[in-house]
Structures are given as structure tokens and as C-alpha cells.
């Protein structure tokens, strides 16, 4: 069992900044995210896109913002459960919570802060009628263990970075790699596109474009896919694995069943006070919440996280006095033993 003060669901900008604000109050945080890396949308969908409305940054790339937030939170040694989705929440008699992920990892926390953005990112599944029957039986939407493809015939479909990157990676492991895309053009980093071209020329990747996988064959396990090339008859391609990589789309998911007040796919919170939900001790901050006048902006998430941490402190220590301290005045004491503080003024007589 992982134990922490504040369990943050979602490791996007708002969740990461919560670690810092909680740390100033000596509260420890642990984050759960369905994606394999922190950063949320910023690192998953648009790491190379600039953001212009982060205070004091006239321009910052979404990926760089994530890196800076991680760097800022590091001194407070946050824990991470990545690649797992928060599934259930159980309130304990003492008012604390146990949150369990889809993989059964249990987290015990005094406070739960949902910073889930638009929800957890789920793979977008192509519209092939029998695809569900082959999930985990040769059809994988996310590559978790590349080793299972060793010496197998693999068909990848998609036209973005992940399709290109995995085609390149698996070309060294699998017996055969076929990349199928609806266009001749790919939407990815230039060096990935060039690498695939090179591997295609070497005969290590077979490219079928413009084409689409229209059907899956097999009884228990995938044995092949039906491919339709534009303007030609469909043909069968032998395959042990079919990996459709069409990106991810966010779904609120199991959090929707936690008994929270939900409106317009977002969690209603008390914005007059502390962004608490209808369940005391459970807060919702950032894009995942809603209240009159809500704006889904990163900077609003930062503000909400800050107020939420103050409220969490009062909930954990109801009788303890505390006033907010400026970091410039009090410095920052990390949980890792580091201390940051403003340099002392020099006091020296002038002769």
C-alpha cells in the first residue's frame, strides 16, 4: 500500500504544481496517471506547441513547461504510479481514502485531489466490426512489452509519430513489420519519416499506402488482416499481431462513478472556497472541474491547486495555526534535504 498525504489523480500541469504548493505546507504527494509519463496533454498531444499565456513566459513549449514543473516539484519527492488508471475510491472510517487502480495498486491518502483534465487517455479504436473479440489476442492498442513481438508478424496501422516510432523499433525485433496508412504522407517528426523510408528501402519494413485494415481474421487469435488498398480489391495479409495506433482520446472513465456531482463531463466544485467536491476531502482542480465562470486554462489550474492545498492542510490539521508564507521570505525546504533561500542582505559600514 502506497501512503501519502495528498493523492493527486492526473500528472498534468495542475497536478504537478500541486506537489509544489503542498510541499510548502509540508504535505507529501503521490500522483497517478494513465499515461506512462507525467505531463498530461502537454506532453502527450502537443509537446512541441508553444503556449503564450503562462505568466512570465512570453512563450514556452508545452513539453518544456512540463519539464520545468517536474523540476520544481522534485524537491518535494513526489511518488508516481504511471500507466495505471484510478478505478475505485473507498472512504475509510477515519475520513481517509483508499484509491485502487485498474492494476490493483492501492493508495492510502488523507486527501484526494482530482486533477484529471479531460479524463484518462484511452486509445482510439478503429471501426472494425470484430476488433473487440481480438483485444489482447493479437490486437493491442498500446505497446507495453515489445518482447511479445519477437519473431512475430506484426501489422501496424496509423500515420502519426507512434506508428512510425514503433514500426522502426519493432523492425529489429519482429519477423516482419508492415505499416499501413490511409495516405502516402505521414504526420511525424522528419527524422522518423526518413528512418522509415530507409528501413523500407532495406526491406525491413513493408509499407502499404494508401490503404486501410478493414477486417481481422482468426479464430481465437489473430492470424491475418484484410487490407484494402485504394482502388484495388481487398487482400489478406498474414499477421500474428495487429497494432492500430490512432492516438488517444480522453474519457472521464471510472471517476464518473465515484458519486461526484458531474455536470457537462466535469466535476462540480465549491469555487467560493476551496474547490472541494460534494465528497468532503475530495477536491477537483484544473480542467476536470466546473463552476460558474470556469475557464480551462493552465494558469487557472495553478490558482485552484494553491487554494486547494491550503484547504487540505486545514482538513488534515484542523487545530494547527498556519499563515501563508512567501517563498522569498521563508525559503523552500525540500523533502530531499535541499534548502533554497534568498541571499541575506549585506550589512557593512561605509568608511
Amino acid at each position, binding site marked *: 500500500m502506497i501512503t501519502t498525504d495528498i493523492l493527486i489523480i492526473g500528472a498534468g500541469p495542475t497536478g504537478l504544481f500541486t506537489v509544489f504548493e503542498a510541499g510548502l505546507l509540508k504535505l507529501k504527494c503521490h500522483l497517478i496517471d494513465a499515461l506512462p509519463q507525467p505531463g498530461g*496533454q502537454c506532453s502527450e*498531444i*502537443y509537446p512541441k*506547441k508553444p503556449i503564450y499565456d503562462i505568466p512570465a513566459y512570453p512563450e514556452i513549449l508545452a513539453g518544456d513547461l512540463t519539464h520545468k514543473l517536474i523540476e520544481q516539484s522534485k524537491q518535494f519527492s513526489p511518488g508516481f504510479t504511471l500507466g495505471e488508471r484510478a478505478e475505485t475510491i473507498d472512504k475509510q472510517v477515519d475520513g481517509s481514502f483508499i484509491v485502487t487502480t485498474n492494476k490493483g495498486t492501492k493508495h492510502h491518502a488523507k486527501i484526494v485531489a482530482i486533477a484529471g483534465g*479531460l*479524463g484518462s487517455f484511452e486509445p*482510439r479504436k*478503429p*471501426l472494425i466490426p470484430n476488433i473487440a473479440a481480438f483485444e489482447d489476442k493479437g490486437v493491442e492498442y498500446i505497446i507495453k512489452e515489445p518482447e511479445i513481438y519477437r519473431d512475430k508478424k506484426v501489422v501496424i496501422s*496509423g*500515420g*502519426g509519430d507512434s506508428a512510425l516510432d514503433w514500426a522502426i523499433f519493432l523492425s529489429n525485433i519482429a519477423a516482419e513489420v508492415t505499416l499501413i*496508412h*490511409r*495516405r502516402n*504522407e*505521414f*504526420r511525424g517528426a522528419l527524422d522518423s519519416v526518413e528512418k522509415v523510408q530507409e528501413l523500407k528501402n532495406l526491406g525491413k519494413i513493408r509499407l502499404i499506402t494508401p490503404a486501410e485494415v478493414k477486417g481481422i481474421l482468426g479464430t481465437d487469435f489473430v492470424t491475418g488482416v484484410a487490407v484494402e488498398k485504394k482502388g484495388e480489391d481487398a487482400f489478406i495479409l498474414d499477421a500474428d499481431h495487429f497494432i492500430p495506433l*490512432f*492516438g488517444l*482520446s*480522453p474519457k*472521464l472513465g471510472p471517476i464518473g462513478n465515484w458519486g461526484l456531482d458531474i455536470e*457537462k*463531463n*466535469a466535476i462540480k466544485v465549491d469555487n467560493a472556497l476551496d474547490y472541494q467536491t460534494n465528497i468532503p476531502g475530495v477536491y477537483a482542480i484544473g480542467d476536470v472541474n466546473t463552476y460558474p465562470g470556469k475557464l480551462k486554462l493552465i494558469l487557472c489550474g495553478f490558482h485552484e491547486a494553491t487554494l486547494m492545498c491550503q484547504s487540505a492542510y486545514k482538513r488534515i490539521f484542523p487545530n494547527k495555526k498556519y499563515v501563508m508564507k512567501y517563498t522569498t521570505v521563508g525559503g523552500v525546504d525540500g523533502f530531499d534535504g535541499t534548502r533554497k533561500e534568498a541571499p541575506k542582505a549585506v550589512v557593512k559600514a561605509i568608511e
Partner: protein
Amino acid sequence: MQDINIKITDRNGVTHTVVAPTDMAMNLMEIVRSYELAEEGTIGICGGMAMCASCQCYVTSDHELPEISEDEDAMLAEAFYVEENSRLGCQIQMTAAANGLEVTLAPES
């Protein structure tokens, strides 16, 4: 600057005639959101960067819209339920030329 009229058929098949300003640099996806014609969280997920296809729509009137950019074309190549008249709403700007535009929102995917 004048307002224009747009006809939007939502994902439940209901057609709405809405008024869109042409002086606020708005696109069709944002018009749909401002009138709440699609559930929040199911449209404009990437914010309007032609990076998610959640605002895909079918243009059913014969308006000459600005050409499809490379970004939009590449994204449509990875979207589902794509038809000949598919566009990404976030790439259709509300200008005088779009007056009378008729679109149908593509299914959620």
C-alpha cells in the same frame, strides 16, 4: 463587422441555426462549443490545433471554404468516419464567406 448565420446539425440529428460573430477570430468548433451543441469534453479536445479530429464535421452546403491545410489533411487521414466532405471544425474560420454554411457534426470517436 456583421454576424453570419450557420446551420449546424448536432450528433443527435437536430439542426440548429446559430448566429456567429465574424470579428472574434472564432472557428466553427468554437461556435459549436459556445452554443453547447456537443457535450463538453467531446469536442475541441486539443483546443483547435488540428491535432485530435474531435471537431470533425461534414460540410453539406456548397460553400467554397479555404483549402485544407497539410495539418488538417494529415489529421483527417487518421480520423474515423471520414467522408469526402469531412473537415475539422477548428479549421473553418467564421468569415463573411461562411455565411449560410451548413454542417453536420461527425460521430464521437
